[in-house]
C-alpha cells in the first residue's frame, strides 16, 4: 500500500482537494498533482468578483500557501501538461518529456473557455475569463476600458458586467437566448437579475448574437450584432460557456459524453481511473439522471469522495449541489438543481430584493434559488439532503416556518 501512486491530472479546485484530502484520510502512498498552469492551485470564483474589482489581492486566491504541498507530501508539478496516458502500462507522459507510473489516476482537468468563432474574434481586446492570467489581463484592461461588450449572459458574464460598471465602463450585454442565466435559473430569477443590471446601467440585447467583430489597427473597435447594429467597444468579453477537457480521457479510450463518463463512485470504465469536478459527467439523484456541474461545491465534494475511496472508505457520491453568484449587492444562492422544473413558487417579494424561488418537478422539491435570503438557502440545503416533503403552498407562505418543517420531517 505504501507504494501506491495516485496521479492527479489538473491542479484546480478538484485536483487540489483530492490531493489534500488523501493524506487527511490516511492514504499512505505517493500523491502527484500535475497542473499546466504556471501557478499553484487557486480559487476561480474571485476572478470575476473581488479580484477583478481590485478588492482582493492575488495572495487571497491561493488555496494554500506554496509550502503546504511539500509539508503534506504532495508532489506538485506546475506548468507541465499531461499529454498522454497509457492504461495498459499505467504510465503517463508530460509535455516536458517526463514520464511516470501510476496505480490510480484522477482526471481533474476542468474545462476551458468556449471560443466564439466569428470574424474578428482574434483582435486584441477580445478576451476570455477562465484563468488567473485571463483575470490579470482583464483587470488591467478595465482601467482604461470605456465601452465593454459582454457576449453571453451567464453567471460569469453578468458578474463581470457588474464589476465593469462599478469600475465606470458602459456595458452592453448580448445574449443569444431570451433569458440571461437561462440554462440554469428560473425565469423569475433571470428577469430579476436582468432588471437589476439595467438599473445599474447595463444595456441588454436579448435574442441577439455577434455577426462579427471589427477592429482598427489590430485592436477591437466595435461589435456587429446579428440584427445588424454596430456597438462600439474597446473591450469584448467572450463568455458563452465552457468545453470540458476530455480529450486525454477520450484518447485513452474512456467514454466521453459531455464530460468524462463516471459511475456513482466517480469511477470511469477503467476501475483505476476517476474523474471529478468540471470535467466529470456523473449520475446524481438531484438531477434524475446524469449531469456535469461547474461549481466549487461539486469539485470539492467529489475530490473528497475519491480520496475517501482510495483510502479504503468507498461511498457513492450523493452530495446536495450548491452554488452562489455575487452581482453588485445581490447574492444568488442555489441549492439543488433547478433545471427541468415544471412548477415554481416564490417565497417573499422580488421587489423587496429578498426572495426565493422554490422549484418543483412532478410535485417534488428539486431546488431553491435564493436572492439575499440565506436562511431559505440553508433550509433548502437541509431539506434536499433528505425527503423535503414541502408543499408549494407551504413554500410560498412566509408565515410557514421552514426550520420547524425540517425539525418536524426529521422525526418521521
Amino acid at each position, binding site marked *: 500500500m505504501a507504494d501506491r501512486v495516485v496521479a492527479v491530472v489538473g491542479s484546480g479546485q478538484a485536483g487540489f482537494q483530492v490531493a489534500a484530502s488523501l493524506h487527511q484520510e490516511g492514504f499512505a502512498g505517493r500523491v502527484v498533482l500535475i497542473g499546466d498552469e504556471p501557478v499553484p492551485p487557486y480559487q476561480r470564483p474571485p476572478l470575476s468578483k473581488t479580484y477583478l474589482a481590485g478588492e482582493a489581492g492575488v495572495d*487571497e486566491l491561493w488555496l*494554500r*500557501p506554496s509550502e503546504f504541498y511539500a509539508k503534506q507530501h504532495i508532489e506538485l508539478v506546475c506548468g507541465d501538461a499531461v499529454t498522454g496516458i497509457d492504461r495498459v502500462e499505467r504510465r503517463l507522459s508530460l509535455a516536458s518529456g517526463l514520464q511516470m507510473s501510476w496505480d490510480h489516476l484522477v482526471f481533474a482537468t476542468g474545462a476551458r473557455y468556449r471560443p466564439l468563432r466569428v470574424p474578428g474574434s482574434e483582435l486584441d481586446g477580445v478576451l476570455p475569463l477562465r484563468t488567473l492570467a485571463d483575470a490579470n489581463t482583464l483587470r488591467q484592461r478595465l482601467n482604461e476600458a470605456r465601452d465593454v461588450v459582454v457576449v453571453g449572459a451567464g453567471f460569469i458574464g453578468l458578474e463581470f458586467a457588474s464589476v465593469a460598471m462599478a469600475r465606470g465602463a458602459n456595458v452592453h450585454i448580448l445574449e443569444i437566448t431570451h433569458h440571461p442565466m437561462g440554462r440554469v435559473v428560473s425565469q423569475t430569477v433571470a428577469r430579476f437579475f436582468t432588471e437589476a443590471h439595467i438599473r445599474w446601467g447595463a444595456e441588454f440585447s436579448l435574442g441577439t448574437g455577434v455577426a462579427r467583430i471589427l477592429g482598427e489597427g489590430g485592436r477591437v473597435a466595435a461589435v456587429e450584432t446579428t440584427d445588424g447594429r454596430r456597438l462600439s467597444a474597446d473591450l469584448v468579453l467572450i463568455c458563452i460557456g465552457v468545453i470540458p477537457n476530455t480529450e486525454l480521457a477520450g484518447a485513452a479510450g474512456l467514454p466521453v459524453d459531455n464530460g468524462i463518463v463516471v459511475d456513482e463512485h466517480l469511477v470511469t470504465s477503467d476501475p483505476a481511473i476517476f474523474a471529478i469536478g468540471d470535467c466529470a459527467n456523473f449520475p446524481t439523484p438531484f438531477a434524475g439522471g446524469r449531469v456535469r456541474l461547474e461549481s466549487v461545491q461539486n469539485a470539492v465534494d467529489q475530490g473528497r469522495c475519491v480520496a475517501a475511496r482510495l483510502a479504503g472508505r468507498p461511498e457513492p457520491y450523493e452530495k446536495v449541489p450548491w452554488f452562489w453568484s455575487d452581482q453588485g449587492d445581490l447574492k444568488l444562492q442555489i441549492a439543488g438543481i433547478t433545471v427541468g422544473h415544471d412548477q415554481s413558487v416564490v417565497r417573499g417579494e422580488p421587489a423587496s430584493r429578498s426572495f426565493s424561488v422554490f422549484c418543483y418537478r412532478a410535485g417534488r422539491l428539486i431546488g431553491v434559488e435564493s436572492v439575499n435570503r*440565506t436562511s431559505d438557502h*440553508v433550509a433548502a440545503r437541509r431539506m434536499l439532503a433528505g425527503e423535503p416533503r414541502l408543499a408549494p403552498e407551504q413554500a410560498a407562505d412566509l408565515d410557514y416556518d421552514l426550520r420547524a418543517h425540517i425539525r418536524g420531517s426529521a422525526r418521521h
Partner: protein
Amino acid sequence: MPKVTYVHPDGAREVLDVPLGTSVMRAAVTNGLDGIVAECGGEMMCATCHVYVEADQLDRTPPQSDDEKAMLEFTASERKPNSRLSCQLVATPEFEGLVVYLPETQV
C-alpha cells in the same frame, strides 16, 4: 498588527499576525494552518471555517449577521453560543490577544 491565538483540539496553540481588515480565516489559510478549511473562500457558503471564540472575548468581535447565524447551522462540529464563522471575523485593533478554538472537524 493584532496577534490571534488559534488553539487546536489537542491543545496546541499557534499565534498568527492578522492584519487589520483581514479575516481570522484568511490569515489561517495564508499561513497554511491546519483546521480551517474555508472551501468557499469566505463567501459564507460552507461553514468550514468554524471557530469558537474565547467566551469572554466575544464582545471584541463584530456582531453576527443574520446570514452568519443561518449558515452556522451547517457546522460539522457542535454549534455553541461562542461559535463563529472565522471568515466573518475581520480584524480590528480590538483583536489583539484574541483566542479562537478550532473544532474537532470542519467537514
